């Protein structure tokens, strides 16, 4: 299956001076793919060489096309000594292999050197000719599209969501090969970068094959991670969700299909009871004051490597499907059966897959409407492994000796290593699956996996949200789209996903159930924790906020097995405390649900860190949370009592304040409707006062807490006291700021277009003297709080704004170092609209209808943008002309040459900006031209446009980056492919580069620049779902050295501003149905 890869090296610019004598460089370029290398001529004595090479052609298998990166090395020719490397560019050519993505990669790429950073740029054009028709295309894994986005990408429609795909590959880490002792750091870094690039290519190809076997055509929510296991190797693993996607712009299929259902949709939820079979025999024994979903002692395996794997299957997991299936409501049972059969049908299909265990997991966090039926709660599993135990004897034998061997063929040794790792993950996934079953669910959504490695100990973690899904989406063979399915389906109401999927009589854990506050028919838990984004149709009261639980535990330094045992002994307590903290903080905020929950446990030499982040919201369907009640152990001491009551007051005040801050004012509901739950005998007998006994009186006095039971905190020792104190130390963000770790902030929906993505890294050194758990906790807490405060301060110019997708990562690079990395995006919003109070259900439904409309409109909008390039956009040009003549530079001067004039324009516009900041009209017009240029790849004339003189490319301007799956105020018109880049940077002159901060600051800025350049070369203007998956920083200040590894990924896209679309449509003289649609859309 050959394909032809064609590469042309056009020019370089801003090269570094390599010859001190002449202050110039004699540069040439090596282009390498697989084992074939081509060279350009040497361009003598220039820092801006113009090679204009011929087309270098590589004839290769498409397997290689997927695995191998294109490697471009820029060198300085030296007659007498060896040629000096200036730097390299790795180009992933995968985006060229999809039929609909980029057709050419062309642009200026920063030339990167692992020791010196960016050293100039090189202009490269890359094309691929695949010798195949569309049919052939389908046979290889080339055609499979990959998306990092954890929802159905914006311009696609999910026909079928197939399910979980995973793969991992293992290799030896070049950094630990014997040869590393004799080669330069540069060579070692480059070997590592290249290897990882190769491994990701291979991994992606293998996953692609699996997707094709499942008859899908895309992977959504693709998450690829590296485990740097040190001596024992390097693991690259990936998970994702296989889907069959349909591009939305196939007009015939879409418009008619979509029109009718969306109309229906508006009515269904309100007029009909979707669950006619509601069981009335609700059990009258809800249990109180218990945490919801995972009983910590059971939700992960306590495995050290020595223990047997089956420990993880707790007794409870057995009862899940059987009992629930029988005794649960018929509707639920039906759903469950359908889901199961849908899932099993696939598992049993005569593919290679049947040999493997099928996991009903979905890495998606947001779903098409109707997909999610019920949500059970968070399921998680952890396992502690010893890395040095995995090698087979032969491997260990060789590794054990010094590495003075001949070059080894590692693949032969590693052949069964992936199996070992596979088995580990399979174990964990099995456990997750059984936890989900215990919750009466057959699927896990918002699923993710992670590892934390310290020396030879590795904690594997997996978590997700147990859920019941609508089986229609999962079935094979449904050619008609999901939209039609939605028609027939009895959809659950907006509160449906809150309803418990498990059986009340046989609850997997003690929980407090009430009737749903929305439909009053089904039972809901008192709190709901999930790892997914807030469903779009959920009714939320007020705004959400970021809630974090932070925890450190000291641990003795130990070796191998003892260490693993110590860690696995600590884990349950960590999980329990993290959970308790989350619950307390949630109550303190007056909220009742967590979304996007992510618990990260990090292992270090002498401590364990736990960091849980989630977005708290008040779901209208769930009961009002109770307050927090403080109970002393010995209530006889008068001053102690006083202290307690003082604390209680403080807590009550905080809750009241938070409710005001987050605008939580749920409508009052009279007791009769709800039906007061019958008080239960307490589980915790040590409770002195039962809140429910006195609930009637309290209701009158303390409205702010609502009518529900208070959450009781017992203060029986200083630790507990400490906990209460720490609860109160969290400072709310300054006014005008909101923060959340989900895609968007619940309760804010009027985003303006300004976004600022950022990464912030902090490392603190603990003083080793006072290392107690308490001091450690305080340090860690301060670190996180200060970091947040700094962010608020830095971004104060964007107020009012919201920090979205706040992603904290903790690592423990050394004994006394804690590193926290935060990536997030600040988005501004319109304050006036944001101040609108909670939407009533009616408003909500209107809004929903309008979002449906929006879906409808997607097609017409695209038509508009498609037709864009055919218009020569005279109005914008005129603006430019008039603008630059305003600016005082004579037109004649501009006319001298194209190149020059473009600069004069730019220059004049800059200068003018200085002089006339307020000239907004003009600025607007420039923006239009720029985006028009960017949007042009949509049309057919794109190639001409991009292969225009290189300097035209520099006008690409700003490439937006965001961790979100969308860009506010803009429409994504095209996905160009996945960006997955891995960089190493090393320095031996740390002080000269501005110390650790200067070094890392520059490196991250360079990584951003390289990501932007690659996106621009693909013809894109933004990266969505951007994520910095790894930022491993190591320093040795004594040796003046530092090294850093960064791995980033995201989806390259083309977006068009909605305002531009509007302009274009209004410019069209023949206002047809389409453009009126656009206007209608904008006004809604």
């Amino acid at each position, binding site marked *: 299956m050959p394909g032809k890869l064609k590469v042309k090296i056009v020019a370089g*610019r*801003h090269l570094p001076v390599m010859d001190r004598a002449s202050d110039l460089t004699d540069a040439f370029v090596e282009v390498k793919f697989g084992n074939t290398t081509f060279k350009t001529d040497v361009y003598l004595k*220039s*820092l*801006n060489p113009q090679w204009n090479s011929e087309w270098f052609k590589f004839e290769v298998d498409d397997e290689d096309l997927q695995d191998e990166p294109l490697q471009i090395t820029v060198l300085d020719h030296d007659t007498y000594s060896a040629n000096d490397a200036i730097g390299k560019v790795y180009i992933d050519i995968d985006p060229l292999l999809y039929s609909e993505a980029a057709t050419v990669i062309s642009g200026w790429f*920063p030339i990167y050197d692992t020791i010196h950073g960016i050293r100039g740029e090189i202009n490269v054009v890359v094309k691929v000719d695949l010798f195949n028709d569309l049919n052939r295309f389908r046979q290889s894994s080339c055609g499979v599209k990959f998306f990092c986005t954890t929802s159905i990408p914006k311009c696609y429609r999910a026909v079928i969501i197939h399910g979980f795909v995973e793969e991992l590959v293992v290799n030896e880490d070049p950094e630990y090969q014997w040869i590393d002792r004799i080669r330069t750091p540069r060579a070692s870094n480059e070997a590592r970068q290249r290897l990882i690039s190769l491994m990701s290519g291979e991994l992606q190809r293998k996953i692609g094959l699996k997707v094709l076997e499942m008859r899908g055509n895309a992977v959504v929510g693709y998450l690829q991670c590296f485990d740097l296991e040190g001596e024992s190797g390097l693991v690259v693993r990936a998970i994702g969700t296989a889907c069959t996607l349909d591009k939305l712009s196939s007009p015939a299929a879409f418009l008619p299909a979509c029109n009718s259902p969306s109309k229906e949709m508006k009515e269904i939820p309100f007029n009909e009871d979707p669950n006619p079979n509601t069981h009335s025999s609700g059990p009258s024994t809800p249990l109180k004051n218990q945490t919801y979903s995972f009983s910590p002692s059971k939700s992960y395996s306590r495995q050290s490597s020595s223990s047997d794997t089956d420990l993880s299957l707790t007794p409870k997991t057995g009862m899940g499907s059987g009992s629930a299936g029988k005794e649960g409501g018929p509707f639920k049972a039906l759903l469950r059966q359908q889901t199961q059969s849908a899932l099993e049908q696939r598992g049993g299909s005569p593919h290679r897959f049947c040999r493997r265990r099928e996991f009903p997991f979905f890495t998606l966090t947001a779903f098409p409407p109707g997909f999610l039926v019920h949500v059970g709660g968070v399921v998680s599993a952890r396992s502690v492994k010893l890395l040095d135990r995995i090698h087979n004897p032969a491997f260990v034998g060789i590794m054990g000796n010094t590495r003075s061997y001949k070059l080894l063929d590692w693949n032969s040794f590693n052949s069964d290593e992936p199996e070992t790792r596979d088995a580990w993950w399979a174990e964990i996934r099995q456990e997750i699956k059984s936890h989900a079953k215990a919750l009466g669910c057959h699927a896990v959504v918002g699923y993710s996996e992670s590892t934390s490695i310290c020396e030879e100990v590795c904690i594997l973690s997996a978590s997700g949200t147990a859920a019941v899904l609508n089986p229609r989406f999962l079935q094979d063979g449904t050619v008609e789209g999901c939209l039609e399915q939605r028609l027939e389906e009895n959809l659950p109401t907006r509160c449906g996903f809150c309803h418990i999927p498990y059986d009340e009589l046989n609850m997997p854990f003690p929980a407090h159930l009430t009737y749903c506050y929305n439909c009053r028919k089904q039972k809901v838990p008192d709190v709901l924790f999930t790892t997914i984004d807030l469903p779009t149709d959920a009714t939320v009261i007020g705004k959400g906020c970021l809630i974090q639980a932070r925890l450190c535990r000291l641990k003795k330094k130990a070796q191998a097995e003892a260490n693993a045992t110590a860690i696995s002994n600590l884990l349950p307590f960590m999980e329990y405390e993290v959970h308790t903290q989350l619950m307390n903080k949630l109550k303190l905020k007056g909220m009742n649900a967590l979304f996007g929950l992510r618990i990260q446990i990090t292992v270090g030499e002498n401590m364990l860190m736990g960091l849980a982040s989630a977005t708290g919201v008040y779901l209208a369907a769930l009961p009002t949370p109770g307050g927090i009640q403080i109970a002393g152990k010995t209530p006889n001491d008068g001053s102690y009592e006083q202290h307690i009551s003082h604390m209680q007051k403080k807590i009550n005040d905080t809750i009241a304040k938070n409710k005001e801050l987050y605008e939580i004012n749920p409508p009052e509901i009279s007791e009769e409707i709800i039906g007061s739950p019958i008080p239960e005998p307490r589980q915790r007998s040590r409770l002195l006062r039962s809140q429910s006994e006195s609930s009637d009186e309290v209701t009158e006095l303390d409205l702010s807490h609502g009518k529900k039971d208070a959450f009781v905190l017992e203060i029986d020792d200083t630790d507990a006291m400490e906990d209460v104190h720490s609860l109160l130390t969290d400072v709310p963000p*300054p006014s005008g700021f909101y923060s959340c770790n989900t895609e968007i902030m619940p309760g804010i929906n009027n985003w303006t277009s*300004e976004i*600022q*993505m*950022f*990464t*912030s*890294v*902090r*490392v*603190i*050194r603990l003083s080793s003297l006072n290392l107690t758990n308490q001091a450690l906790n305080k*340090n860690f807490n301060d*670190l996180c709080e*200060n970091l947040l*405060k*700094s962010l608020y*301060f*830095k971004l104060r*110019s*964007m107020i009012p704004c919201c920090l979205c997708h706040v992603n904290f990562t903790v690592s423990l690079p050394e004994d006394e*170092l804690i590193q926290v990395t935060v990536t997030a995006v600040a988005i501004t919003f319109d304050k006036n609209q944001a101040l609108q109070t909670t939407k009533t259900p009616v408003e909500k439904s209107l809004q929903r209808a309008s979002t449906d409309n929006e879906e409808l409109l997607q097609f017409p909008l695209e038509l508009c943008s498609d037709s864009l390039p055919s218009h020569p956009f005279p109005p914008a040009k005129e603006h430019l002309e008039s603008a630059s003549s305003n600016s*005082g530079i004579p037109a004649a001067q501009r006319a001298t040459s194209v*190149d*020059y004039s*473009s*600069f004069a324009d*730019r*220059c004049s*516009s*800059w*200068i003018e*900006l*200085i002089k006339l*900041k307020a000239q907004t009209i003009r*600025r607007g017009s*420039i923006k239009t031209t*720029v985006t028009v240029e960017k949007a042009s790849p949509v049309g057919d004339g794109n190639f001409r446009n991009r292969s225009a003189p290189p*300097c035209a490319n*520099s006008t690409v*301007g*700003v490439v*937006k*980056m965001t961790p979100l799956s969308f860009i506010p105020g803009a429409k994504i018109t095209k996905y160009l492919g996945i960006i997955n880049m891995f960089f190493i940077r090393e320095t031996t002159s740390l002080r000269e580069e*501005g110390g*650790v*901060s*200067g070094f890392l*600051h520059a490196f*991250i*800025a360079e990584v*951003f*620049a390289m990501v*932007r350049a690659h996106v621009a070369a693909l013809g894109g203007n933004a990266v969505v779902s951007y994520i910095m998956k790894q930022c491993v920083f190591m320093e040795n200040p004594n040796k003046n050295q530092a090294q850093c590894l960064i791995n980033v990924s995201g989806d390259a896209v083309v977006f068009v501003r909605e305002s531009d679309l509007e302009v274009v449509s209004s410019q069209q003289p023949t206002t047809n149905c389409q453009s009126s649609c656009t206007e209608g859309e904008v006004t809604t």
Partner: protein
Amino acid sequence: MTSELDIFVGNTTLIDEDVYRLWLDGYSVTDAVALRVRSGILEQTGATAAVLQSDTMDHYRTFHMLERLLHLLHQLIFQIPPSRLTVYPFWMGLTQPSESPARPRQTPFPLFYGGYYAFDEAFVREVLGKKLSKGTKKDLDDISTKTGITLKSCRRQFDNFKRVFKVVEEMRGSLVDNIQQHFLLSDRLARDYAAIVFFANNRFETGKKKLQYLSFGDFAFCAELMIQNWTLGAVGEAPTDPDSQMDDMDMDLDKEFLQDLKELKVLVADKDLLDLHKSLVCTALRGKLGVFSEMEANFKNLSRGLVNVAAKLTHNKDVRDLFVDLVEKFVEPCRSDHWPLSDVRFFLNQYSASVHSLDGFRHQALWDRYMGTLRGCLLRLYHD
């Protein structure tokens, strides 16, 4: 607990103008933090001192990186078409105007740039007309003490002058345009730099005590007039032979013109011509001038002064002393007789116009080229 590392990197670089100003002014991080605290920012934002410290450090680091970038920009300047320069802001993720949402505190690259090249009047006044070489750099310490501008800031400003001088020194064409295009400066700033470069190139003396009353603006005004009228570029003759060793069009005074100025000497050397000139001026101004009698008494001295200045300009040393001479020979005598500015204007207008009526004088065009500029300069220089 000590902070080892603390960074913030945005996809677009945010520049806080207040911190930027402090950095430009050469304050250390500690001083900058103290100044920011004093500005009341903590109360406004509710931030802590630690946050402020971290923020300031971060900005300083960013500015440092941008500074290196700027210098790189000029190292490359001769090799590439100017349009390519725009790539650098792109690297750093600085917003460009087409994208700028016009938030007050987000400085797009040009503003950063302009800010970097901004200078203090007090500083420029000290180095104006001096040779921009290393020798002068040693004096920066003294200037810093004298003006109260931090040494760091002095160094930046001085290096900027030097950098601009070096780049445009070898260039043809309009000085202002060259500066504007290669340094992406605002029109105003480019004109100022043109003046600085022009003064440095011709080494005009500006430091004498009797010139202390003049501001940089005064000199810049004169420089502009002189560039427009007295340089080679002013004649508008494109060099016919591009390979010939031409003088810099805008930076050097037109040698031929200076040589010709000797011809004007006849105006004072020829007694008849001088008397005729005087009577023409006096007739025209009688009754119109408040200081008529003083003018009448001083006419010959003044005229001799102005013409002699012109005749001497062939010598480099006299060119350097141009402003000293003008002040000594014209400004000071008039000032001591308390001429109002309006009278000076009347006089100078009449003085230059009357020459046209002198039949024996053949260098009318030369006179106009000389006197047109000089009149403008003198009027600007004539104040307290």
